[in-house]
């Protein structure tokens, strides 16, 4: 286990790279929260999809299949 539970600097850096804006103090936490929700949804959908396909576990294929929908779901 890494010492930090989430790479805060990385989230900040990534968002900053995409926006080019500074971020207020807790925004990154909320972003990370949103990200965890996203990942949860993604994994869930992928699990459902791969189960439907009859695969064991979550396959990359299923992830790729569902991710567009999930991304869209999280689009503002």
């Amino acid at each position, binding site marked *: *286990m*890494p010492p930090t*539970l*989430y*790479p805060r600097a*990385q*989230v900040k*850096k*990534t*968002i*900053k*790279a*995409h*926006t*080019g*804006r*500074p*971020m*207020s*103090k*807790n*925004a990154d*936490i*909320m*972003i*990370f*929260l*949103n*990200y*965890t*929700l*996203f*990942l*949860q949804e*993604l*994994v*869930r959908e*992928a*699990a*459902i999809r791969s*189960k439907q396909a009859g695969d*064991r*576990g*979550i*396959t*990359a*294929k299923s*992830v*790729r*299949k569902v*991710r*567009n*929908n*999930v*991304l*869209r*779901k*999280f*689009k*503002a």
Partner: protein
Amino acid sequence: MSASARKKARISPPHISEGTTATETLYADLHQLSGILPTPTTPHRRAASAGPTSGGRPTPNIVIRTPGTAARTPRGGPTRHTSARRNAPTTPHAIRALRERANAARTPGLHRRRSGRVQRETPRDMLRDLSRVLARDTRPVQPSPQDRRSSRNAALDLPDVEDGPELVAPRLSMPLGDMYDDDSFHDAPPRRSLLPYLPNDVDNGTVQSLEFGRRALSEDPRMMYGTRLSERFADLNELGIEGEEYEIDGTFINRRPGLDGEELLQEDIEGMDDTTTEMRALTGRRDGRMSDVNLGVFGEVDDEDDEPTFRFTIPQRIQAPMQDERLEDLQEEPEEEPQEEVEEELEEEPQEELEEEPPEEQSEEEGGADAGLDGNVDSDEELPAPVEDPTGGIEITGWESDQEADGDADLQAYREEVSAMDRSLQTQSPERSTDHDQRPRKLRKEIKTSRIGLDYSSFNAATVKRLANGFAKSHSKTKISKDTLAALVQSTDWFFEQMGEDLKAFADHGGRKMIEESDVIAIMKRSRQITSNSTPFSLAQKMLPRELLQELRMEPAPKLKRQKRKRMERIEEEEAD
């Protein structure tokens, strides 16, 4: 009870007389009406609402317990009609049965005994009840007759209104021509089949008759999630969903890109000419492109070969030489015939794209109509970037007009560069493998460049894995494989990209430079992550580790104070000034 009614009727006449002469209150009207109606006589047959009838006649819709059962009991029969004369029964059951039967015979229900009022359904009674409810000394409302008249008039006018404006005769045929109007209020054109988009004048009688599987409009994710996306996709459809047309017929391969493919292709050429942004040009065209390239990082197994491709009959290895030929052609006659080049592009490029695509998205489809559905969705979803890229404007150095100006240099660069298409084709080639060997094994060190030109590294795979493992455990025990992790990391990057754009847009809208928590919350609200049931805090409590939760909890208070202080200081300064 009729006596009391008469009494009241006797009492009321003064009111009535007043009412009839000058002012008519509702009460008076009703009273008068009830006076006109004949006084109720006990009807032979009881009203329907009066309750269950006795006598053991079974009424189908009303549940009668006692009479029926009593009729069956040996004592029930004889006691039915002579109950009044008989002596009181001894057993409690008999007593109760008798009483109930008697009640059922005499009274329609409990109400009668309780209130002592006649409960019959005569209009007179109803009117009297109504009049009782109304206050006796209500004054007539003055404008009421006018209102009545006006309302009556309005009712009479209605047909006139309908007659008045000449209605447009309904069109019984489908307005096919209007379907593709850009300014139609449908964000997504209603017809989303695999059929290619053809101009109206083209004779597409046979094509239109083809019917592929479609998604119901209600299930269409494009309809479900927001208009903005579909706005984009509307444009993207124009750019060409290659999967569509090439599936159908070879003849459309040429025709379709001719619509607006030139710009698109030009853009592509430009993008690839730029050596530094070659990758981005690719990813710009397709979000999936980046991952195509990246997939090599995660192992020797290439999805391109792994997964069956159904729709593309042209094998990759055959396609590669074609590329080379084209490049040679370009070298021979680089700038004399840019048009020809474009045409070549038109013919070849889509196929290349198709070959690039399948590993990512489209090859996953399991053929047939299913493929059609997914193809639609996937290719649509793939596309957002290309439209935005030009707005990003960094990697696009020029458009068609510019191309002739600096065509030489670009083409030179283009020739030297192994085109991205080629690269994707040469997945097995040693060149590519060396390319990847140079890269660090871990994704996190891989530097990417965002749309606005800032570098960022791909998200930490370890974090993603840990999180995803946590989520996946609830579904299945199996661990997340390398490939899956790669896909997840890729999705993560896309997510952050999307998030970044959204945040930027929100901050812009708020007129701020700074991205604030409220922006994120607004986004989450819009994506229905935060609802009335799930507050940001409850979500945080559910999802986030305790540290972060604490921070989230602790922060807001001091933040507010700080802001206040700042404001105060500013005000003071202003005052001092």
